[in-house]
């Protein structure tokens, strides 16, 4: 931080550039490609379809099964493929965040599979993943209460900043990713590592929500871009 400008030239409350495209995959029921700074994320939704094996079925509602995966070439050193502690955790919190907005009770015994592939990673992949998954779910026509969106805030050199880069994440004091349902601003996911005072925490949450609202606009734009020319069958 120098004179209120961050290492990559952004202001403390500025997001990295974001690009979202809906419906990029033919085989998936819904999909989304997202670029967020140095992150490149592909999200695909399959289902609702019959949950297998049978004992995982819930006769009252659908299960939401998100799978967050980093491809081996997504980070500087080759990442060993397959789930690890980190990606299993992110898969779990993502599933739970998305479950909070999907009308799962409409699809008993079914599963809704969400695959989030991180093709290129540069801090904030779980937020980017949730944001992409939300667009893919809408693209799959799955009824949702809201279009969820995620964004992180954190603390670097004693200043609360929005949307940390990889260097800020490593060298900074704290990182706070949150996911919200933008209409009600209900929080669907919140995690934190590092240390912040209660005052800084409140400031960070507010800043992250402000970031979410901006990302939400881009999500809506991406869906509108795909569907504005469509006519009802």
């Amino acid at each position, binding site marked *: 931080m120098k004179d209120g400008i961050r290492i990559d030239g952004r202001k403390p409350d500025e997001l990295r550039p974001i690009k979202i495209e809906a419906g990029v995959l033919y085989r998936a*029921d819904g999909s989304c490609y997202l670029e967020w700074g140095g992150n490149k994320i592909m999200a695909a939704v399959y*289902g*609702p379809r019959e949950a297998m094996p049978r004992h995982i079925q819930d006769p009252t509602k659908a299960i939401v099964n998100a799978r967050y995966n980093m491809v081996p070439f997504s980070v500087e050193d080759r990442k060993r493929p397959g789930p690890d502690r980190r990606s299993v955790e992110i898969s779990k919190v993502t599933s739970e965040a998305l479950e909070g907005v999907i*009308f799962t009770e409409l699809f008993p015994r079914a599963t809704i599979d969400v695959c989030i592939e991180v093709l290129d990673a540069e801090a904030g992949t779980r937020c980017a993943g949730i944001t992409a998954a939300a667009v893919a779910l809408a693209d799959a*026509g799955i009824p949702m209460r809201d279009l969820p969106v995620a964004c992180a805030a954190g603390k670097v050199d004693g200043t609360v900043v929005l949307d940390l880069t990889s260097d800020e994440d490593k060298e900074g004091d704290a990182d706070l990713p949150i996911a919200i349902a933008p209409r009600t601003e209900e929080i669907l996911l919140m995690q934190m590592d590092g240390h912040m005072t209660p005052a800084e925490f409140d400031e960070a949450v507010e800043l992250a929500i402000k970031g979410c609202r901006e990302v939400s606009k881009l999500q809506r734009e991406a869906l509108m871009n795909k569907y504005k020319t469509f006519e*009802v069958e």
Partner: protein
Amino acid sequence: MIEEGTTVLPGDKVAVSEELKAGKSTYEENGEIIAAVVGKFRVNREEMSAEVEPLSSTPLLLHIGDTAIGEVKQVTEAMVILKIIHIAGKHRQVAGERDAAIHISNVSDEFVESLKGKYRIGDILRGKIIRVEPAIQMSTRGKEFGVIKAYCTNCRSPLVKKGEILECPSCGRVEERKIADDYGAGDLDRVI
């Protein structure tokens, strides 16, 4: 209430509950009617409900009258148990339960004494969905419905239609089935 025909996204407020009730693809929360899918906003004037006509593809739910392709899993005395593997004319997988049953009375227009010689395990058949709740029931009455591919019970190679019977090209075994009029054509998307 927003203008009819407006493209809406999940979470968009379309009306208040004093104006309309929540209909297809909408829900009500705190007196507001909100869209649940991407689509065009419509008002159903008969029911005075708010609806969203989806623009995206939608999850595949089963309806009475759908033409379904199934694989026979079990044949009992009065029932054929099968798994629905495809709905004619649809691309997506069935959302939820796929196990269906055909009662002996719905197998054919003629009287069926026994299911032997009608269906065997592993047969691929086309049928119509006649009930969805509480369990899926299908019917294969009519010449368009019945087995569209069957396997030899002796050597499991696909049977070939010879007149009104099926013959195994590798072992010469002759078998009987309730055959659809387009047996062997492999037309999974024929909607009847």
